[in-house]
């Protein structure tokens, strides 16, 4: 945290604020762009640190979008955490408010349906890209791929609470076999 001036706060606000307006399908779709901004463009953190903050954001309560709070803290301390969170959630919240007001007034129900159907394949494509990017930032051994694969199968095929699967992953990591 050597450059904690208002310059990096501005970069945080501008980067996350602009990106959030394109985050179709929510936080999970935005992971590749968050990774691109935090690791590749601005060099705020390493791949390993990115994988760590992703893990912490999944372990903590609240919406998954709070990965940006962790990145913001890494860049500029508590102010950075607040600025990143508000930049990521504020503009789209205002946008959502105005769109819902508009829709409840106009009652024209055709357009939302078309846009929604058109966005489904795009947001699944973005989420798949998230999976790929995370796979290569967090998995560095064949046992790691084995853990990821087993969790994917268990989560898909059973109704296990995801938290237990995360805890199991943590224990396997702690045991040092990854």
């Amino acid at each position, binding site marked *: 945290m050597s450059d904690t001036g208002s310059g990096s706060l501005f970069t945080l606000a501008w980067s996350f604020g602009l990106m*959030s307006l394109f985050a179709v399908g929510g936080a999970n779709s935005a992971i590749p762009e968050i990774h691109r901004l935090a690791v590749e463009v601005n060099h705020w953190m390493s791949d390993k640190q990115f994988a*760590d903050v992703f893990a912490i954001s999944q372990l*903590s309560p609240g919406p998954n979008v709070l990965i940006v709070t962790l990145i913001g803290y890494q860049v500029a301390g508590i102010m950075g955490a607040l600025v990143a969170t508000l930049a990521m959630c504020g503009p789209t919240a205002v946008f959502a408010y105005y*769109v819902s007001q508009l829709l409840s007034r106009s009652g024209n129900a055709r357009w939302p349906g078309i846009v*929604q159907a058109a966005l489904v394949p795009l947001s699944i494509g973005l989420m798949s890209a998230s999976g790929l*990017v995370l796979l290569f930032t967090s998995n560095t051994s064949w046992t790691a791929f084995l853990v990821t694969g087993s969790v994917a199968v268990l989560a898909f095929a059973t109704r296990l609470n995801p938290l237990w699967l995360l805890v199991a992953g943590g224990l396997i990591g702690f045991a040092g076999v990854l």
Partner: protein
Amino acid sequence: MHPSSPQADAPIAELASASPPGLLTLFLAFAKMSLAGFGGVLVWARRAIVEKHGWMTPEEFNETFALCHFLPGPNIVNLSVVFGSRFRGVPGAIAAFAGLLGPPVVIVTVLAILYARFGDIEALRRTLAGVSCAAVGLLFAVIFRMMLPLLKKRDPVSLALLVAVFVAVGVMRWPLPTVLLVSIPISVTLTMLMRRRAAA
């Protein structure tokens, strides 16, 4: 979830409009569902809004969530704003937004402080590496679940768009705004053309 006979629906619909929540109630309800929501808040939001408080019918909730899903940004944050404003206008939107984000942001910030301090400890690094491998697995399960309906429909246009966006963002690592400014108009146009053809 509920039987859809009119007799069964009537009391729910009545309840849904009978007691609009106040600002403090909104704040507390969203804070509670947010803190309960490990790995996603949506399930808890539905439970609280539809089943526990009866503020919306299941249909109203689905419609509101569908709207929030196609808007950009975190879906559940959008939901809090749309929901809060429906009952109490702008102050209601702010109360729900603050309830959803305030408490977990405090917790996550504390975790960030701990990570900055102790993140170099080898055992913690190993544990977090294990957690993130598992979390990636969870993400793949969600992706596959969402992809199944598309695969079943065998709609080549949707699948081609999905793969194109995946390659552009995941493999080529092109910036998200650029990719979406190209792919959204294409997808909307194709969807409209296909609906027109299906209708004709």
